[in-house]
């Protein structure tokens, strides 16, 4: 406890991040109900403005239903590239200003200001950082300063949008007590429902339940929950790390058992992420293929390979994995390919398997892709005209 008494952790969260970015790009959207997400019938709401939330819309809701709830809402297709660009901008500001930070998600940051109180005062410093971020990016951000990650996150959610709060050390329990248990991160539908059924509504009640009882009810998670309810959280701020995997997945417009189509899609996805891998001068040592059946049952299989970024090898491995994975003859809703165990480097040429022709072809393809964009050049086996795939590359027609 010596450690936590000395800690000062600020949690910063960009308010309705996706919507704010869209508003920056199109100021007309300001103050209006905005929905962001997939445009197709099966899309979901990724984020929505406060104005839209008044209609009972929340993120994760099916777009169809959201539109029914608020028919005059502006629907914007999500543009993750733009969002990550703004996210990087904010990350850079934080990186330049603080000694230790963790990027918990695209719009959330934990900043460890422990020790800074001697010089600037943590609250003052956080406040200055907030102003700096707003000035540099034009996005609204909320923060809370507390003695651990849990309390600062809960507090940030309480003061959103555009708010700030300090929970002084020792006041964690007082702050959490009156809140609903659903505010504790980690309590979702299931745990929440079980607790509510027992009459546990506020964090105060939860914190007073003996730890043994929670253990009997929820197992190990019960012990952790007990600590959380008492405002205890010792998890450290882990510095932001580079991405450890790269992948993509595709949900079909209608579920399919067309193996040929699935193979085409696998080739297309593998080619796409393998190119991304090479662009970043990285190699992968592990390939993962995932499928989700129409009943949402999800299975995945992985394989360790020699480090490579070569399309031919990766496509072959992905197909092998898929063949081993798809044995059920059941409709498939989604397939995904992911490369993990990434290292930086370039392909070690194999004297027996990589012919000079293949190497030259590869290099030529990559240089064309780099110059004109990767969507213009692909294997014929990945090229298809199918309405079942939203982003399917269309063969060129005259």
């Amino acid at each position, binding site marked *: 406890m010596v450690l936590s008494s000395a800690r000062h952790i600020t949690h910063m969260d960009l308010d309705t991040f996706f919507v704010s970015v869209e508003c920056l790009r199109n100021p007309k959207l300001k103050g209006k109900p905005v929905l962001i997400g997939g445009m197709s019938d099966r899309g979901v709401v990724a984020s929505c403005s406060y104005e839209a939330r008044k209609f009972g819309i929340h993120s994760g809701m099916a777009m169809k239903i959201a539109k029914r709830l608020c028919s005059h809402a502006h629907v914007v297709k999500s543009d993750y590239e733009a969002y990550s660009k703004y996210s990087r901008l904010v990350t850079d500001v934080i990186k330049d200003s603080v000694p230790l930070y963790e990027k918990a998600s695209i719009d959330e940051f934990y900043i460890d200001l422990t020790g800074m109180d001697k010089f600037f005062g943590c609250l003052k410093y956080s406040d200055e950082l907030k102003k700096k971020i707003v000035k540099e990016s034009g996005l609204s951000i909320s923060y809370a300063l507390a003695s651990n990650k849990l309390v600062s996150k809960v507090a940030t959610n309480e003061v959103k949008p555009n708010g700030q709060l300090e929970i002084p050390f020792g006041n964690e329990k007082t702050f959490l007590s009156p809140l609903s248990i659903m505010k504790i991160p980690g309590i979702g539908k299931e745990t929440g429902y079980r607790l509510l059924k027992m009459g546990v509504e506020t964090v105060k009640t939860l914190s007073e339940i003996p730890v043994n009882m929670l253990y009997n009810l929820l197992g190990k998670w019960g012990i952790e929950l007990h600590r959380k309810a008492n405002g205890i959280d010792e998890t450290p701020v882990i510095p932001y790390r580079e991405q450890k995997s790269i992948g993509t997945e595709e949900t079909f417009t209608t579920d399919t058992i067309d193996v040929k189509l699935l193979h085409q899609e696998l080739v297309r996805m593998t080619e796409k992420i393998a190119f991304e891998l090479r662009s970043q001068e990285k190699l992968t040592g592990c390939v993962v293929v995932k499928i989700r059946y129409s009943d949402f049952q999800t299975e995945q299989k992985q394989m360790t390979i020699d480090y490579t970024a070569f399309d031919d090898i990766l496509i072959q491995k992905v197909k092998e994995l898929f063949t081993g994975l798809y044995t059920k003859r059941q409709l498939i809703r989604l397939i995904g390919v992911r490369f993990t165990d990434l290292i930086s*480097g*370039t392909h*070690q040429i194999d*004297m027996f398997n990589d012919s000079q022709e293949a190497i030259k072809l590869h*290099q030529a393809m*990559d240089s064309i892709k780099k110059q004109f964009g990767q969507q213009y050049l692909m294997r014929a086996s990945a090229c298809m005209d199918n309405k079942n795939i939203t982003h399917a590359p269309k063969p060129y027609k005259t």
Partner: protein
Amino acid sequence: MKFIVSSSSLLKHLQQISGVINANTVLPILEDFLFDITDKKLNIVATDLETVMRVQMDVESQENSRVCIPAKILIDSLKNIPDQPLTFSIDKNFAVEITSDNGKYKVMGENPDNFPKEPVADDTNSFTMTSRALITAINKTLFAVSSDDLRPAMTGVYFELNKDAIQFVATDAHRLVRYRRTDVHCPNQDSFIVPKKPLNLLRNALPDNDDEITISYNSNHLFVMHGTTQLTCRLIDARFPDYKVVIPQDNPYKLVVNKNDFQGALRRINVFSNKSTNQVALNISGSELKLAAQDVDFSFEGHERMNCNYNGEDLQIAFNAKFLIEMLSAADDDEVRVELSTPTKAGILKPTEQEEGEDLLMLVMPLMLNS
């Protein structure tokens, strides 16, 4: 049954063959040595079912007998017993009692009839070479053997026999070593693949001198005999890749460098390279060779330049530094010649001068540089 043997001599013989025994075996009896006494000769055998090693020594004994004795406990005890004659007595339940000046030790042996039978050497062809020649061949090739069990053919050294030469080839698909000796004559034109483990054992068991050793083989096994020491191993039943086609015949650019300088530079630079790829970029122009490595994840970087003798167009090519360092160690000469062509084609490494009757060629595939 009883026999008397010198403790230090027994230990010496056991240590020659104890490398065969694996730490975790499926069959408990594979953790044992087989002791077989015939006419005052003690034969000791160790096996892992793939490789069998046998040594022979003289003992004092009245009768012929056999027993299996657990290897680890026997070696551990012998290491701590001062040099003296030891008396082994074995009862009918294969309980072994060892009597020394210091005291008595008991271990439970096993029934020798359960010990795996050695493969029989029938239908064999044979040739001879010196012990030193075989050790040299192993030292120059074994490092390039692959450990990828998915390509079993490459997990051993390929022996290619000829009337007037023998060739040893090892590859892991990224590099290849071909070592040829013309002072060995084999009656038949034949080839087989010997796994890594027995070669490693031979390297440790054989003396580095001109003793003659006899090598016999049939379609399944290899038999190596040096005096009374014998090693038998199963050959790898796979087809060795057609390595001849991947050796470029006409790499036009020749780079000559001092071996020790080059190796030293690579060793220093490699510290700063990515630990998984060991990628080092060579930039050769005129008489200057630049080496560069970096690890972007940790912001490590290393650069060096050295003098070289090069005739060819300016070239940038990347290699795994570990491969180059190992290959340079296998070259005995002070200077090495590297033959290159394009950044995606194999580089060839040779000592500038070779011993009479020997020919060493090493090949290494580059790492692809993203253009």
